[in-house]
C-alpha cells in the first residue's frame, strides 16, 4: 500500500492572511461582547430568569457536539481501516480539538463570573454531570493530542489503531455526558428522557462531519489541493446516512414523549403550537437540515459531487443549530408544570410561555467560538503536517482507475 506523505501549508497566501485577519476581528468582537455582558450584567442579553441559557449555549453546545463528531473521519480511517479516510485522520483530529476549544471558550465567557474559572477548575462537586464534563473535555483534548502524535510520528504509527479506539470510545462518553446535561433535568418536561444521550451522539456524528466537509473543502480550495470526486461522494453519502440517523432519533424522542401522557404538553408546544420553535423544528431541522440534504447526497451527479455535498453540509450545519435552539431555548420557553391540571398565574411568569430574542452580544460571542476554531485549524495547518499531498481519488485508492473526469494525481507544487 502506498504511504501517504503529508505537508504543512507554505508560501504566501494572501487569502490565508486576509482570512486570518477577518477571523481575528470576529474574535476581538466576541471578547468585547463578553466583556460588555460581564460588565453590565446579563440584563443586556436576551436571557432572563426564565430563559437562563441562551444563544451562547446553543452555539457552544453545537461546537462541543460537533467536536466529538469531527473525529469521525479519523476513527473510520484508523479504527475501521478504511483507506479512503486514512489520509484525512490528522485534519479530523485537528478540527475536533479546534471545535472543542471554541465551544468551551464560549461557554466559559458566558459565565456570570467568568473570572472564577479557576474556581471551576479546582472545586468540584462530583455528583454534578457538569463537573464530570470538565474532565471529559480536558481528557478528550489530551486523547486527541496523543492520537495526532501517534499518527504523525512514524515510529508510533503502529499505536494509531489503539489510540484511535480510545479516542472513539472517549468521544462517545463525552457526547453522552453532554446529552446528559439535559437528560438529568428531571423537572423539565422537554429534557427528561433517556433518548437525549443517543440523540446527542447521532447529532455529533452528523454535525461533526458537516463541519469536517466544510473545513476540508475550504482548505483544498485555499491551498490548491486536489479533492477527488470519489472521496467527496463518499463523505457526502456518509453525511446523508448520519443525518437520517439523527432524524430517526428525533422521531424516537418525540414519539416516546407523546406516549408519556405527562409530556403531551411540551410535545404539542414544539410540534404544533410553539410558533418560532415549531417552525424551526419542522422547517429548519427536519426539512432543510434533514430531508433536503439527504435527498441531495443520494442523487449526486457523477464527477460533480462537490457542490451538492457542500450545500448538504451547510444545510446540516444550519439544521443542527436549529435543532439545538429548539432543544435548549424551546425546552425552557415552555413553562414548568408545578400544579398539574391547574391554571397558574404569578409575577414570576408561572404558566406563561416565555419568548426569547437573542441579543447581539450573545450572537457575537457565539460566533467568536467558530472564529476561534477556524483560527486554530489554520494555525495548525500552517505549523504542522496535517494535510496529505493529494486527495485525488487515485492517490487514496490504489485500485481506483483514473476516471475520465480527470481524477489523475496532480504533482504537488
Amino acid at each position: 500500500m502506498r504511504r501517504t506523505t503529508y505537508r504543512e501549508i507554505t508560501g504566501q497566501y494572501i487569502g490565508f492572511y486576509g482570512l486570518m485577519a477577518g477571523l481575528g476581528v470576529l474574535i476581538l468582537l466576541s471578547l468585547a461582547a463578553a466583556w460588555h455582558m460581564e460588565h453590565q450584567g446579563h440584563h443586556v442579553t436576551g436571557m432572563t430568569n426564565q430563559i437562563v441559557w441562551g444563544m451562547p449555549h446553543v452555539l457552544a453546545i453545537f461546537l462541543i457536539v460537533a467536536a466529538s463528531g469531527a473525529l469521525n473521519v479519523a476513527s473510520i480511517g484508523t479504527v475501521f481501516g478504511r483507506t479512503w479516510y486514512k489520509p484525512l485522520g490528522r485534519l479530523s483530529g485537528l478540527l475536533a480539538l479546534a471545535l472543542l476549544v471554541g465551544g468551551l471558550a464560549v461557554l466559559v465567557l458566558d459565565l456570570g463570573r467568568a473570572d472564577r474559572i479557576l474556581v471551576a477548575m479546582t472545586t468540584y462537586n462530583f455528583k454534578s454531570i457538569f463537573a464530570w464534563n470538565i474532565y471529559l473535555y480536558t481528557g478528550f483534548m489530551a486523547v486527541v493530542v496523543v492520537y495526532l502524535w501517534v499518527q504523525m510520528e512514524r515510529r508510533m504509527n503502529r499505536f494509531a489503531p489503539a489510540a484511535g479506539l480510545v479516542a472513539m470510545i472517549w468521544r462517545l462518553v463525552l457526547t453522552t455526558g453532554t446529552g446528559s446535561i439535559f437528560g438529568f433535568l428531571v423537572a423539565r418536561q422537554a429534557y427528561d428522557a433517556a433518548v437525549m444521550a443517543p440523540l446527542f451522539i447521532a447529532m455529533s456524528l452528523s454535525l461533526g462531519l458537516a463541519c469536517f466537509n466544510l473545513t476540508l473543502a475550504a482548505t483544498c480550495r485555499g491551498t490548491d489541493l486536489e479533492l477527488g470526486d470519489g472521496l467527496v461522494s463518499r463523505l457526502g453519502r456518509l453525511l446523508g446516512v448520519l443525518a437520517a440517523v439523527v432524524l430517526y432519533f428525533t422521531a424516537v424522542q418525540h414519539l416516546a414523549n407523546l406516549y408519556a401522557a405527562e409530556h403531551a404538553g411540551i410535545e404539542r408546544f414544539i410540534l404544533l403550537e410553539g410558533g418560532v420553535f415549531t417552525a424551526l423544528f419542522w422547517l429548519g431541522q427536519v426539512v432543510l437540515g434533514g430531508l433536503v440534504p439527504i435527498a441531495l447526497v443520494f442523487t449526486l451527479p457523477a464527477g460533480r459531487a462537490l457542490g451538492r455535498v457542500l450545500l448538504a453540509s451547510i444545510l446540516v450545519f444550519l439544521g443542527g443549530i436549529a435543532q439545538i435552539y429548539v432543544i435548549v431555548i424551546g425546552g425552557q420557553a415552555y413553562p414548568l408544570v408545578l400544579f398539574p391540571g391547574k391554571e397558574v398565574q404569578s409575577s414570576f411568569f408561572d404558566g406563561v410561555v416565555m419568548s426569547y430574542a437573542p441579543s447581539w452580544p450573545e450572537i457575537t460571542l457565539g460566533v467568536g467560538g467558530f472564529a476561534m476554531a477556524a483560527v486554530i485549524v489554520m494555525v495548525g495547518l500552517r505549523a504542522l503536517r496535517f494535510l496529505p499531498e493529494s486527495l485525488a481519488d487515485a492517490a487514496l485508492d490504489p485500485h481506483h482507475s483514473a476516471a475520465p473526469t480527470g481524477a489523475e494525481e496532480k504533482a504537488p507544487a
Partner: protein
Amino acid sequence: MTGRTPQQGFDPQRRRFLSAAAAAAGVTLAPGVTLYGVTAAGSAAARAPEDPVTSSVRWGLLVDVNKCRDGCNACVTACVEENGLRGNGRPETDAQWIRKVELRDPSTGAKRSLPLMCQHCASPPCVDVCPTGASFKRADGIVLVDKHICIGCRYCMLACPYKARSFIHEVVEDQKPYAPRGKGTVESCTFCVHRVDEGRTPACVEACAEAGGDAMTFGDLNDPNSRISKQVAAYVTDQIRPDLGLDPGVRYRNL
C-alpha cells in the same frame, strides 16, 4: 392532553408524604453527618455562633392555603425589604425569592392563592447539578448558594423544578450585610438563615402573622413538639410535585 400527570388521586400522594414525615422524625436526611441527636433546648432554639449547624434539626415551613388571602402580598414585601432585593423595574431579570401564585381549577373554577419560594428540598437537584459545590444544603436542611464559589453557570436554575432561583443580572446596591449578593451569581430564598440562626423566624412568616393571615408556620420538623410537627402530624398536607421525590421542606395544607 393538558400536561396532566397521572397522579391526580389523593391517596398515593398522601401515603408517600406520611412515610416521608415518619422518616424525617426518625432519621435525618443529610448523609454523612450525625444521624440522630437532640439539641440542648430540644427545639427551635437559637444556635450559638460557635455551635455547628446540626442535622438533628430540619427546618420546615407549613403554609395553610386557606388562610392565604388572594391579593395579599405581605410576605413578598417583607422578603424584598429584609434581603435588600429591590429590583430595577425589569420583571424578567429582577430577582424574586418568593412570589404569590394564583391557582385556578379550570373544571370547578375554584381559586387558590399561595406563596412559593425555594422549597428547601431534602434531595435538592440544584445541589446535585452544581459543578462547583456552590449550591449546598446545610445539615439543618436549609439550601443556600455560596456566593464566593458560584461561577454563574445557571445550571441549578434549569434543574430546580420550582423555578425558585434568580440570577443577578445587574449590579446590586444597598446590600444587607447579612444577605450578600453579587452580580453574576445565583441566589434564592435562604429561609432568612441569618434570623433563624438567631432563633427568629423568617421575615415572610413574621409579616404574614402581622398582617393577620397567620398562614405560615416555621419550625423544626425533627422536633415532635414543635408547632409545625404537630400540625403536619394532625392534618393532611401536600408537597408540590411530590412525584419528583425531592421531599421539600415547605409543605402546604388545604392546597
